[in-house]
């Protein structure tokens, strides 16, 4: 969906403002929100793609004005409610009413280092060879997608060149809907600045995205 998260190429957000000596967390609650998000993710109710989609479905006015950890927290509340773990009423009272659904999946403190060190690789066994090869000219899809997608709006309906094959990775557009949807070939695709931005492009620039095979057609 071309929601508020789809920011590439938009105008009007002003200068980039780096903060000197920025702390990792700006308030203790930010660290708790990060930890809660990771711990709740370990319960296995949703995929990383579903959690991303939960964030991009937040109201645009909120998404564009909230701090990033507030976006995470608000999406986490929505995910826990959708999957029946924490109701809005429980959040309002601050007290548990119903028992948890998956206490057996609780991430124990002792397991945190191993879980973080392992991560969640998304490569999958391919069911067919890649359609495109390095050097191929490709055209990206211009179809409107109402659900989750990782093809940014600025790179829709554009001509690019495959510069690398990244492997066969879980396809986010379907993975966001629930179960592990299987893999799709992933390519690094390069676009010239002129192709993306026309006469408004800065000279001598290019953008490379990682694009899944279903986003691409032979040019």
């Amino acid at each position: 969906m071309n929601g508020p998260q789809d920011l590439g190429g938009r105008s009007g957000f002003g200068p980039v403002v780096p903060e000197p000596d920025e702390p990792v967390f700006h308030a203790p609650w930010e660290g708790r929100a990060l930890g809660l998000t990771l711990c709740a993710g370990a319960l296995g109710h949703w995929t990383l793609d579903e959690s991303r989609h939960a964030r991009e479905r937040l109201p645009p006015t909120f998404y564009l004005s909230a701090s990033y950890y507030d976006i995470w927290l608000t999406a986490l509340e929505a995910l826990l409610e959708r999957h029946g773990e924490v109701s809005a009423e429980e959040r309002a009272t601050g007290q548990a009413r119903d028992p948890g659904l998956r206490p057996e999946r609780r991430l124990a403190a002792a397991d945190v280092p191993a879980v973080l060190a392992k991560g969640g690789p998304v490569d999958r066994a391919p069911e067919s060879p890649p359609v495109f090869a390095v050097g191929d000219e490709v055209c990206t899809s211009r179809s409107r997608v109402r659900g989750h997608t990782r093809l940014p709006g600025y790179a829709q309906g554009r001509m690019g060149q495959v510069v690398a094959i990244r492997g066969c990775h879980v396809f986010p557009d379907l993975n966001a809907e629930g179960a592990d949807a299987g893999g799709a070939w992933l390519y690094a695709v390069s676009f010239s600045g002129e192709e993306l931005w026309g006469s408004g492009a800065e000279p001598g620039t290019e953008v490379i995205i990682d694009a899944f095979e279903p986003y691409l057609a032979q040019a």
Partner: protein
Amino acid sequence: MHDHGPGDNELSPEEARVRALETILVEKGLVDPAAIDAIIETYAEKVGPRNGAQVVARAWRDGGFAQALRDDATATIAEMGFHGRQAEHMEVVWNGDGVHNMVVCTLCSCYPWAVLGLPPVWYKSPPYRSRAVAEPRAVLAEFGVDLPEETRIRVWDSTAEVRYLVVPERPSGTDGWSEDRLAALVTRDSMIGTGLALQPGAAA
């Protein structure tokens, strides 16, 4: 914003919501509060851009290691002990030969946690995410990086689970330097591509 101690009832709305959610999840047996502490400690104290700086310094010194990074960055970086969450699929991109690389995630905040830690606020915010792909030279100028016109700028938008680490150009005058000395020249921003490595004498 100020820190709130125990018993302080002037909570920010976000802090109140986080506390409520944590309380409920702990009561339901779904979250171990000590696990949250461990996650915070990991990213506040253990995992950060010093990891990536070691990778870069070794790549500068050791041609075999640099080649291994080109062949399989994920495995090569993992051998240094940097692996896992948000570094499951690594690629290294190299500055030099008239090319400057810069990394962004226009769609969210994808960032190679295992080598750079958690991303700074500016990396996650709309100004950088909107402009890095459309006007990278202007963004670089705001970071104080002015590149020659003929330098080609390659912007990597992290739209999938591949995470990118930029190897900045090695500053001249560092021949024979140890890995540790070199690593001190490698800033976080130089590994995102919004900065350059420090010049000898500039490192703390």
